[in-house]
């Protein structure tokens, strides 16, 4: 029987273009902020998992475990990088959970970090495309955006839905981000602006795609035993966690729109948490592109209709991306899964201000690697 795992500290940098700060500085800032939030001695951290996708390509820097441990002043910790494309952060949380739940460690840190603005957009784009099959997909000149556009057209074509319905998703996210101090874009956009933005990979338009940005988010996870020695009031438990994969390239899946890895990961994580999907009070979905946001909601009904009815807002049926999601909070890819959990912690602690979901007890973060080729789902419960 796995031991219980709690999140006792959370920290993050604002997402944005941090020209003056390096990858390691962002990671250290988030980590130290989480340590401070936890109120612990950082030397208690026995293990460190760094969620990151592209440091090897954009900074020529691997070995992030030792690098971040060194710069954070915790050399000696069992540290390594966790990579699962844009799902790196969510998978890093999953691995940190396992490290504590196994009973091996009592206090573990997880940092998600990505520094994208060091590179030209074309190089960042090529680095993102490493999430896909290099020999048979990227070889064709496909960009990561265009692969999502393939799904988008398939969805519009199959269900006869108008693009405007799907393009409303980013409008929701921007509205939420206005009240999030950590968000990259704290401004609202209109549907008209989204539909008038330039085509990036038809049918996807610029304002339907999460931006390029830098950022780091960190969490401190600990065991019940550690918590007894270092008690604190506001507690969030990692109630269930799961990672699932799908056939790597969407076009090879029996049904490219099925998002099978998401279904599998949600099923496993909720089972482990002993909850139902309908019990979730706050949801974070992986809206790297508008279509992914909508597809992620399909388990709860027609995704676009939930957006249209305002059901994603605090007070709605299924409050989703209440801090802005990938689109507006920002999507520093390898950090995103950790940011999602950070945002849930804020909600479950009741610290979300104007965007607070009243009485939120259960949250779920869904983090994708590739075109939902890897899905990490983390279910959080408010604990006292």
């Amino acid at each position, binding site marked *: 029987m796995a031991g219980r795992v709690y999140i006792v500290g959370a920290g993050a940098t604002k997402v944005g273009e941090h020209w003056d700060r390096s990858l390691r500085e962002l990671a250290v800032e988030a980590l130290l902020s989480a340590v401070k939030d936890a109120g612990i001695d950082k030397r208690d951290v026995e293990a460190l998992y760094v969620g990151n996708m592209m440091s090897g390509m954009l900074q020529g820097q691997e070995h992030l475990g030792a690098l971040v441990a060194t710069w954070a002043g915790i050399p000696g910790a069992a540290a390594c990088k966790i990579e699962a494309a844009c799902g790196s952060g969510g998978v890093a949380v999953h691995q940190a959970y396992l490290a504590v739940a196994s009973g091996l460690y009592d206090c573990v840190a997880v940092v998600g970090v990505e520094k994208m603005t060091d590179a030209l957009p074309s190089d960042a784009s090529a680095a993102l495309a490493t999430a896909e099959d290099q020999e048979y997909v990227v070889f064709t000149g496909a960009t990561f955006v*265009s692969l999502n556009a393939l799904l988008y057209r398939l969805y519009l074509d199959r269900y006869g839905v108008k693009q405007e319905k799907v393009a409303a998703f980013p409008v929701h996210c921007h509205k939420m981000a206005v009240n999030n101090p950590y968000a990259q874009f704290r401004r609202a956009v209109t549907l008209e602006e989204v539909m008038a933005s330039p085509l990036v*990979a*038809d049918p996807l338009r610029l304002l339907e795609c999460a931006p390029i940005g830098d950022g780091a988010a960190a969490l401190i996870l600990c065991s019940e035993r550690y918590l007894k020695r270092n008690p604190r009031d506001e507690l969030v438990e990692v109630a269930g966690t799961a990672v699932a994969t799908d056939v790597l390239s969407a076009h090879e899946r029996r049904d490219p729109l099925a998002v099978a890895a998401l279904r599998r990961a949600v099923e496993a994580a909720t089972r482990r948490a002993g909850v139902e999907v309908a019990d979730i009070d706050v949801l974070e979905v992986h809206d790297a592109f508008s279509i992914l946001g909508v597809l992620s909601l399909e388990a709860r009904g027609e995704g676009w209709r939930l957006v249209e009815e305002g059901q994603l807002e605090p007070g709605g049926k299924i409050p989703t991306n209440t801090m802005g999601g990938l689109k507006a909070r920002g999507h520093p890819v390898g950090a995103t899964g950790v940011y999602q959990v950070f945002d849930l912690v804020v909600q479950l602690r009741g610290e979300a201000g104007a965007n607070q979901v009243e009485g939120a007890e259960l949250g779920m973060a869904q983090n994708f690697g590739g075109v939902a080729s890897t899905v990490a789902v983390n279910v959080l419960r408010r604990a006292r």
Partner: protein
Amino acid sequence: MVWVESAPRAWREGTRRYRLIGGKCPSCGGLVYPHRQVCPYCGREGLEAVALPRRGRVVTYAVVRNPPRGFEGREPYVIAVVELEGGARVLAQLTDVRPEDVRVGMEVEAVFRRYREQSPSGVIEYGVKFRPAI
């Protein structure tokens, strides 16, 4: 782009890329492109190598307007999922067609084209693209 120029990689994949060599699963009948050791659907090992049909239909497509390195100067170009006769799905570029003339369901046929140069002085990589059937 290629992160590390590699003649062996281009060479190794050449035949499968040039001749549309797919894999047929003896257990579930699944057809995949390219040929590989194990069926992604049922896990069966030992897929039979088959030359896939050269005609098919566009299932979905996207227009690339911000190309990655190695494809600069080609934009806008179209990538598509093509379902070949027999059911194998291939991701490939469409060629000899303007983006605005592409339709889902369009009948296409395989042609042999240049995909990318590993660098301006590097190996040129060729493979199958699809054009509107003529």
